């Protein structure tokens, strides 16, 4: 009986086996298919499409009459785009710098075996759970030239205090830096704290045994080990800066005038409210280029590091 079983099995197994086997082989790929389609169209297809649009004279509706680099030429001669880019430089650099300094500083302090560390960490991080629109609304109120901080200081007796950055075209971009740093610095703190916790305590003990002082240990051993954390923080912050849109929208709507415009604001208003689709597309391609200018060298060094390590 056992024999006949084996025979019938070998006879039927290959055909049926091959079919289920092939299905098993295809199932994983089949499972990825929806995402693959979405990514192919939604990320790469649309990116390409926008690229195409940026070479057309599209206005309110897409048109496919090609105008070469005309939109880019318009873009670079546009004073408002120049302001937006200059603002992005100021905003981006200050935002990244302040977040790194504050985040790193707080992380080091929190790493000193602090009681209630969990509670403190939670407080530093909660702004990240808020929408940029909420953040913008709140800071718009706090920095309100007549009723906000200024009035508070007057009430406290500092009557000459004047704070009108929100309506001052030269200073308005710094108000956005303040709000953005308030929101995102806790994030850098979390990254650095995780990095600090990842350092082998034996190394620090060894340095202690060698007689190094605590500040020296941090400067010479701990902070150099934070290099990867530093770079990934910069990447994430720069990414936030380039994409920044909601915060400006909520705090100043780009005003006064277009003094606090950022590229993302520029893109939105030219594309969707002023009906200059071609120019908007060109500006978004420039934003992509900025991001790639940061991302490509970063990924390159990451990958090279991995290969060497």
């Amino acid at each position, binding site marked *: 009986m056992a024999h006949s079983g084996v025979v019938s099995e070998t006879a039927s197994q290959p055909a049926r086996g091959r079919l289920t086997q092939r299905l098993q082989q295809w199932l994983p790929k089949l499972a990825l298919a929806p995402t693959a389609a979405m990514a192919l169209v939604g*990320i790469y297809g649309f*990116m390409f499409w926008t690229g195409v*649009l940026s070479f057309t004279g599209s206005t309110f509706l897409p048109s496919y009459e090609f105008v070469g680099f005309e939109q880019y030429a318009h873009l670079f001669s546009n004073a408002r785009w120049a302001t937006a880019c200059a603002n992005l430089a100021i905003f981006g650099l200050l935002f990244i710098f302040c977040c790194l300094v504050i985040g790193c500083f707080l992380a080091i302090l929190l790493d000193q075996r602090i009681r209630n560390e969990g509670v403190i960490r939670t407080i*530093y991080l909660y702004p990240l759970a808020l*929408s940029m629109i909420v953040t913008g609304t709140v800071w718009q109120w706090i920095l309100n030239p007549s009723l906000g901080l200024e009035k508070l200081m007057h009430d406290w007796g500092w009557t000459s205090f004047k704070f009108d950055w929100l309506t001052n075209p030269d200073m308005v971009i710094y108000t956005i830096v303040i709000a953005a740093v308030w929101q995102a610095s806790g994030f850098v703190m*979390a990254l650095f704290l*995780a990095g600090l916790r990842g350092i082998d305590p034996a190394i620090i003990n060894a340095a202690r045994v060698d007689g190094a002082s605590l500040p020296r240990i941090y400067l010479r051993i701990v902070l150099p080990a934070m290099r990867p954390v530093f770079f990934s923080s910069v990447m994430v912050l720069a990414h936030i800066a380039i*994409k920044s849109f909601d915060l400006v929208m*909520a705090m100043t709507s780009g005003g006064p005038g277009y003094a606090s415009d950022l590229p*993302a604001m520029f893109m939105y208003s030219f594309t969707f409210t002023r009906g200059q689709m071609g120019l908007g597309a060109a500006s978004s391609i420039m934003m992509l280029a900025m991001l790639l200018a940061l991302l490509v060298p970063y990924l390159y060094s990451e990958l090279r590091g991995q290969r060497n390590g």
Partner: protein
Amino acid sequence: MASQIEKKLTPSRILIYATLLLACVAYLIPVFIMIITSFKTTGDIRSGNLISFPEVWSFEAWAKAWSTACTGVQCNGVSGFFWNSIKMAVPAVLISTALGAINGYVLSKWRFRGSDIFFSLLLFGCFLPFQVILLPMAATLGKMGLANTTTGLVIVHVVYGVAFTTLFFRNFYVGVPDALIKAARLDGAGFVTIFVRILLPMSVPIIMVCFIWQFTQIWNDFLFGVVFASGDSQPITVGLNNLVNTSTGVKEYNVDMAAAMIAALPTLVVYVLAGKYFIRGLTSGAVKG
């Protein structure tokens, strides 16, 4: 010995605690201001200052923000927007998490030639400046008849959220020993059974991370909401922005703050209840992203 040193309150340790506390105050004060302002009356705002408590605690501003404040031409408060956000966020979170789980499973345990390249290509979606896809997406949604609908918003959030959810699940499943999959295969389990019976029951923590991350992202999104939705499908962030920037009439900061609180509450509640998972998502998203 070390612990003995730690317990002594030296001047330098007092300084550390003082600095940390000061930072806590700095982080907390805007929300504190938001809360007390939302309970003030209009007169109270004129007479008091930023951090003075309300003379009388009033829910007027909240009521107005919820149901009668003007958001552009309409004056129905933000309640409609709030429900729109819920209708948008819940399905988008569920679908993107489910897709991320399946993708992560395949990309970690059923890798095939090209699957790593696919993963890298997908990851770029985490870094994409969304401005670059707005126009084609708007055109496509229009063609599909989904422009200005909640369904359209759900699709957009799924498409651009799945890169993150895949990253979360993939990194989580990479940590699950391959021997577990081998054992299950020898036990006779196939692709689906292994996922449903072995991996999913282990995935509760990462599902939490994913839910919370996606919920926060989608709830807080403004760009997609303002571009792809109009009128009766706009999410709360757009509603809040419209309310704050409506130029008709006198500016009512108490109503603005109440509306901001309404917009912030769901994510704040989630953060307070499950902050651990939120932070995990944040750091793991950044380190690998």
